[in-house]
């Protein structure tokens, strides 16, 4: 029924309306002073400045580096661990309490210790990101391994596969879509953690840029930073959704 309309334009309608209203209440009606709510013009000006002086690029690269470092470390630990725990039930039972208790702790709650242990800079931020995405990746991987169709495992066994081949040729490919889902959730959390970590224990990155700009009442730059984070999240989401489309059969 409603599927027939050409929907390429539809997603752009709401952002444009929001920008128009935003423009009206800031530039035309002048309801707020610039440091309470910067106008779209302020934001474009700020964007131009941070693009020209290279701050936006360095801080974005810096943030992305932390995100990927944390995500990589978490994956290296959580994917193999998830496979083991999903495969050997006693091991999962052994770890279940520890995982259940550590998992709900918000990653930012680790900020005090990350500063005490690693000081200020890149490493504490990476640690926070690691703590944020290790559990989703772990839990999704365990789930993926456990959901492996028993008939496929038994088929492989009756075709002569030993345990190692069952794991490698059946369990891993069948868990892969779940692992990718875990990474997708993980990267979203990683991005959020990075910004929080940068605001407290760091001297670089988009979070740091946002905070310092706000302290100088340069709220235009604050909005630029926020939008860049949003766009990065959007790109990640797009890439992972594409990856999922390719591996979900």
């Amino acid at each position, binding site marked *: 029924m409603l599927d027939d309309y050409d929907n390429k334009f539809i997603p752009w309608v709401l952002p444009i309306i929001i920008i128009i209203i935003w423009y009206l209440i800031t530039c035309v009606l002048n309801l707020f002073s610039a440091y309470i709510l910067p106008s779209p013009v302020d934001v474009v000006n700020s964007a131009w400045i941070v693009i020209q002086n290279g701050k936006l690029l360095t801080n974005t690269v810096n943030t992305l580096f932390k995100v990927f470092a944390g995500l990589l470390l978490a994956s290296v630990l959580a994917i193999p661990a998830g496979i083991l725990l999903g495969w050997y039930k006693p091991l999962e039972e052994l770890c279940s309490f520890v995982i259940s208790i550590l998992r709900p702790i918000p990653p930012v709650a680790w900020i005090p210790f990350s500063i005490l242990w690693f000081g200020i800079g890149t490493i504490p931020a990476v640690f926070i990101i690691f703590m944020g995405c290790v559990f989703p990746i772990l839990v999704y991987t365990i789930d993926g391994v456990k959901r492996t169709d028993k*008939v*496929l495992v*038994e*088929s*492989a*066994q*009756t*075709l*002569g*596969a*030993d345990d190692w*081949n069952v794991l490698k*040729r*059946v369990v891993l*490919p*069948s868990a*892969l879509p779940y692992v990718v889902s875990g990474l997708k959730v993980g990267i979203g959390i990683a991005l959020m953690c990075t910004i929080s970590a940068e605001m407290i224990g760091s001297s670089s990155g988009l979070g740091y840029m946002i905070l310092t700009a706000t302290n100088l009442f340069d709220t235009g730059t604050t909005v630029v930073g926020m939008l860049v984070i949003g766009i990065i999240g959007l790109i990640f989401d797009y890439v992972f959704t594409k990856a999922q489309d390719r*591996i979900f*059969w």
Partner: protein
Amino acid sequence: MSIEVNNASKSFKSNNKDVLTVLKDINLKIDDGELICLVGPSGCGKTTLLRLIAGLENPTSGEVIANGEIVKRPSGDRAVIFQQYSLFPWLTVLQNVTFGLEMTGKGSDDENIKAAEKYLESVGLVEFKDSYPHELSGGMKQRVAIIRSLLNNSPILLMDEPFSALDMQNRHKLQEQIIEFREKLNNTIVFVTHDVDEAVFLADRIVVLDRNPGRIAKIVNVDIERPRKRDSKEFLDIQDSIVECLDVDE
């Protein structure tokens, strides 16, 4: 390869801690190259018996012997074709078919692919070799699953109601293909079905099971020449005698 089931019983613990005896004191000798059909009402343990022979379950007491060795775990010697579709969804038809050969390390890749193509050709699926399972119909999937086991040269084929989800036309076609393949390859086949017609068409001997607890009620020799005609008198007579033997409530 011959199979011997000696005094095998199988019980499971159910949720309220009662012990449920699914099979009790099963004794069955299956000769090399024989085609046996297991029929019986639901809950008679025919699938469980098949799983014991496969080594996917171990008997609570008694033993299963295949080719002179006690069966303890699944092996490539005893391929199982399941009722549910069991192709690996992330592999193409060709990759699915050569999976067993890869596992057992038989043959080079080229030889295996050639052999697989020859088999696929024989069931009219060679043009689907690069398709993925989700692109195939149910009948095609089961044909690929059968080819996958045959190509692996498993001397024993264990089939658990493999055609129950198919329409009658497809079912008849695949039954004929099973007979054709058996004449060429001389596998020992144990075929579970609830379809008496199917059993009489395929089997050298039909093992009728009864339930509570599952046990062998009767073994019927099917001495009808092949190709068998489903409307011949001898076919219908055997069919009647088996239907009589089965529970009425089935």
